[in-house]
């Protein structure tokens, strides 16, 4: 028994015979589409800076703290999420995420900006971390035949969250007189309040609908024996505590960290990169609009990559798909350094593929972990691996901005050549790390009976 309140406990959500597993992805999506809002934080930035008279650095602080808290809370609470079950985790994530907005609204009303930092970044950030990992192990258990597709759907939702929040936040701020040069602070506060309430309602569907499969459930017609045939897919169980002692965990940590860093290389400077590559092609105003559209098309590639490539990984295997992300990713960066100005089609194809590999790196990693460590504590292991994301979130912008600043006197595509070369090196290192991944040694496996009885006790 987990000791959590009855309604939220794992025991209460064991699916009855005949439960449709196709209810699980929308339950997961209702969490991920909501928490993905974090990537639309910039929609609030302009209003906060002018309305509260704060600097750009200060207005970015809730976002930065939120991402740091995401990594920390996913690592710290991962085991608890696995133990208490997805309904508990999703409910806690919903409460934290919505409370973050409400505390921020209060802070803006009172003119106390620190409450926005603590509310959105601190409390909301804990909701981000717990929410991000909350449906992953459940999805993998419901879709043992297609784990890449299942986690791809959910983690695509995280990419899609900003897609929804960007226009929604902008139109709400505009309706409340919270845009322009003199935004109304009460209008900003009201927007935060409404975000908190709407996200709380939206996420409720997730924790009400989520179910875990019974211990002996398996999809109709699925034969686990076929899974055993793949060398990299284990049916054994490795605990989270043991997983971090294995080289496989740290090799995947490097793979994720460098793949994310390489994606951020484009994402962080997408708008200026476009303007520098095509600065002579069109008038300034048209160029600015095209650069904004370029950022949008990259978010679409990022989001679709999460679903498409992760699903393909079910067919060709996890190791092969990361060969594609890292190996072809390095070649695409190489192509970008050679194409120079003007070749828009090649430029768009290269950058969109790079961003699709960036997104896919996130969505495929839970299935890779499942293959290597089993389903036993895959949520907790995933939580610990997300520290690679936090590291890349700091590393990527530092590399790209430092190089861009150092070459501020250079015009055109060559301005980015050193940054792209650094990304190629990182991707090659990630490729080598992926090549070194082997099945986990038997000594790390949990005794089969102990792992199984613990899992059965939970369900």
């Amino acid at each position, binding site marked *: 028994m987990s000791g959590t309140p009855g309604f939220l406990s794992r025991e209460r959500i064991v*699916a*009855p*015979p*005949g*439960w*449709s*597993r*196709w*209810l699980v992805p*929308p*339950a997961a*999506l*209702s969490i991920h*589409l909501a928490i993905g809002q974090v990537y639309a934080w910039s929609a609030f930035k302009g209003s906060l800076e002018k309305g509260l008279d704060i600097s750009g650095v200060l207005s970015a602080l809730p976002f930065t703290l939120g991402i740091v808290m995401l990594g920390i809370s996913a690592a710290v609470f991962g085991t608890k999420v696995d133990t208490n079950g997805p309904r508990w985790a999703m409910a806690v994530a919903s409460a934290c995420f919505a409370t973050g907005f409400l505390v921020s609204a209060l802070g803006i009303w009172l003119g106390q900006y620190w409450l926005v930092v603590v509310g959105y970044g601190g409390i909301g950030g804990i909701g981000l971390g717990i929410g991000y990992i909350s449906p992953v192990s459940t999805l993998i258990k419901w879709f043992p035949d297609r784990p890449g597709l299942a986690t791809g759907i959910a983690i695509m*939702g995280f990419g*899609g969250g900003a*897609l*929804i*929040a*960007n*226009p*929604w936040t902008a139109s709400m701020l505009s309706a409340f007189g919270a845009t322009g040069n003199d935004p109304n602070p009460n209008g900003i506060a009201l927007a935060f309040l409404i975000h908190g309430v709407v996200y709380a309602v*939206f996420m409720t*569907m997730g924790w009400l*609908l989520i179910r875990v499969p*019974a211990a*002996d*459930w*398996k*999809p*109709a017609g699925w034969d686990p024996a076929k899974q055993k045939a793949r060398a990299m897919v284990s049916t054994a169980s490795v605990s989270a505590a043991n997983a971090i002692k294995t080289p496989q965990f740290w090799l995947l940590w490097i793979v994720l960290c460098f793949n994310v860093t390489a994606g951020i290389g484009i994402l962080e400077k997408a708008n200026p990169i476009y303007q520098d590559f*095509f600065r002579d*092609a*069109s*008038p300034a105003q*048209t*160029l600015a*609009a*095209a650069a*904004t*559209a*370029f950022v*949008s*098309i990259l*978010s*679409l590639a990022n989001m679709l990559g999460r679903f498409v490539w992760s699903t393909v990984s079910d067919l060709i295997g996890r190791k092969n798909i990361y060969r594609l992300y890292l190996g072809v990713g390095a070649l695409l960066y190489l192509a970008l350094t050679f194409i120079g100005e003007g070749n828009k089609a090649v430029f*768009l194809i290269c950058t969109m593929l790079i961003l699709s590999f960036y997104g896919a790196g996130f969505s495929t990693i839970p299935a890779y972990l499942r293959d290597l460590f089993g389903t036993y504590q895959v949520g907790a292991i995933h939580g610990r691996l997300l520290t690679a994301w936090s590291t890349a979130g700091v590393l990527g912008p530092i590399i790209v901005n430092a190089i861009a600043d150092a070459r501020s006197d250079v015009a055109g595509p060559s301005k980015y050549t050193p940054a792209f070369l650094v990304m190629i090196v990182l991707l090659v290192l990630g490729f080598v790390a992926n090549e070194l991944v082997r099945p986990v040694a038997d000594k790390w496996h949990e005794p089969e009976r102990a792992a199984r009885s613990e899992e059965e006790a939970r369900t």
Partner: protein
Amino acid sequence: MSASTPDRTGGPPVALVVLAWVWVAAPFLYGLIALLTKIPALFSG
């Protein structure tokens, strides 16, 4: 529960499955449409 229980044998009503997907698809489509309207600017220059 049988080990080979099919995943659709009289569980939740189909309407609930449809409602759950509409719940997440509606805001997603809103965001997608808002994004797609920006893309033509990329090819207008």
